[in-house]
């Protein structure tokens, strides 16, 4: 199939349409506004519904309504807007509604900057709203993956009746790259016989709800969710490695820093330093076991975590996976500054020197 040059944000929108997205609700915010822009013109032509909502809060609740009524629903935003959606996301998780939420992250906290960031890792992977819940988080690191993951996200959401987050960043959203519109693996999906779409002869009413005043009922919901999350952890964890087989310094990174790291690996190896990359593809479930095993290999001397975050957020998960078996160093920028290849090389060399 011929390659086409696509901008990340437009690929997100087109991928959703190809995945049979019935409706999109969104609010403008840089650097993701091309998603609603593309949707506004292309989704109605494909028979879907586009509404520009009055706020991110309204958009996620429109998703709740449409998803609750059985539709494939989606919203997208960028960091501050995703914060506003958290109320809706916890309700979606509690009511077990499938939907796709795209976060094209920018630097924070607060209004922050419109340049790329990765400061929403905790929010995405720990369940950013109230209560005990998780959302599947897919982290693409190029435009092709972004297009693939958005399509797959709808199936994952439907399979588990759960919101799925595609966590991209401003660079992936704004950049162009050749992609192929290749078929993504299709899943066997359960019927949406729970949807509140009108009884139409059904002998009972369907109710979409997240309120259980009786503690036993609320506990039962939580137990059901726990079982579901265990199932997702078993089935859906994904990661990718590059040059890990003999790596003495192991870089951990996701999204944009992971692809920048690929260039750094090549240059480090040219200088005789055996560097490898471990890239979590699902941030939740986190590939804890896989990373732990690689980190435990005797050839790995040190781990260097790189993120577009000042304090390091995935760093916590890396630490949990490595369990203190190897030293961990951190390289991070926030505020919209991306780590450079040169910095990564320097940091990798320093980390290795310190470990030896």
């Amino acid at each position, binding site marked *: 199939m011929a390659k086409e040059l696509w901008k990340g944000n437009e690929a997100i929108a087109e991928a959703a349409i190809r995945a049979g997205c019935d409706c999109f609700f969104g609010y403008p915010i*840089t650097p993701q506004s091309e998603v609603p822009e593309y949707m506004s013109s292309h989704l109605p032509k494909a028979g879907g519904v586009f509404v520009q909502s009055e706020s991110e809060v309204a958009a996620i609740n429109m998703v709740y309504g449409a998803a609750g009524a059985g539709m494939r629903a989606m919203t997208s935003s960028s960091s501050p807007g995703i914060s506003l959606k958290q109320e809706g996301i916890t309700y979606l998780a509690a009511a077990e509604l499938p939907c796709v939420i795209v976060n094209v992250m920018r630097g924070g906290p607060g209004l922050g900057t419109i340049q790329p960031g990765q400061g929403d890792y905790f929010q995405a992977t720990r369940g950013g709203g109230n209560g005990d819940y998780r959302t599947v988080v897919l982290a693409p690191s190029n435009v092709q993956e972004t297009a693939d993951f958005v399509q797959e996200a709808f199936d994952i959401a439907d399979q588990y009746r759960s919101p799925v987050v595609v966590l991209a960043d401003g*660079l992936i959203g704004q950049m*162009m790259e050749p992609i192929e519109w290749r078929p993504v693996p299709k899943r066997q999906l359960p019927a949406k016989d729970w949807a509140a779409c009108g009884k139409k002869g059904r002998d009972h009413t369907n109710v979409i709800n997240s309120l259980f005043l009786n503690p036993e009922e609320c506990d039962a919901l939580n137990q059901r969710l726990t079982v579901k999350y265990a199932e997702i952890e078993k089935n859906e964890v994904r990661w990718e490695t590059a040059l890990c087989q003999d790596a003495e310094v192991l870089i951990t990174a996701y999204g944009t820093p992971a692809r920048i790291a690929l260039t*750094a690996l090549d240059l480090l190896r040219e200088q005789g330093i055996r560097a490898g990359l471990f890239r979590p593809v699902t941030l939740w479930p986190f590939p804890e076991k896989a990373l732990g095993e690689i980190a435990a290999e005797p050839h790995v001397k040190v781990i260097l975590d790189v993120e577009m975050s000042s304090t390091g957020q995935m760093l916590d998960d890396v630490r949990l996976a490595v369990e203190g078996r190897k030293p961990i160093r951190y390289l991070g920028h926030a505020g919209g500054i991306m780590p450079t*290849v040169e910095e990564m090389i320097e940091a990798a060399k320093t980390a290795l020197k310190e470990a030896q």
Partner: protein
Amino acid sequence: MLKQIIISGFGGQGGLAIGKNLAEAGMEQGFHVTWAPSYGPEMRGGTANCSVVISSRPVGSPVFARPTELIALNEPSLEKFEADVQPGGAVFVNSDVVTDRVRREDLSACYIPCAKIAEEVGNPKVGNMVMLGAYVAKTGFLRPETIEAMIAQMFTGPKAKFVPLNIEAFRRGMACGE
């Protein structure tokens, strides 16, 4: 082969489009490419630049500190990026707008009066094609036929009449770069 190109100018000057054309041509010839814009509130009038990578290997970082070539459409762009260009690299200067010269002696400089040539060709809007031609001729890794086929695809239907004009501008630019 690894080309890291920065195209920079005022917003609205067409730098992002030149970058996109280069990326597209690279893709057509089977290279791995990325195009990454600076983005922000400066939609018109501010400085806008994009980073293009054209590589025979998959592209890791789409952004880079040291370009192999710089296309400077305005003076601030030359000022900002000249120092970053890799030794032996090339700088393409839009000499209608930029009066400064390239200071470094380890770079090859190419001065192209894009607007003047565009007007000679008959349309001030085709200045970008002149610049593209100069880049293609000077660097030699993109085939002129690739660009000309792309131009034919860019303008179809009632706009097809613009094809000869753009090809003419592109060829005049090539003459400047050779």
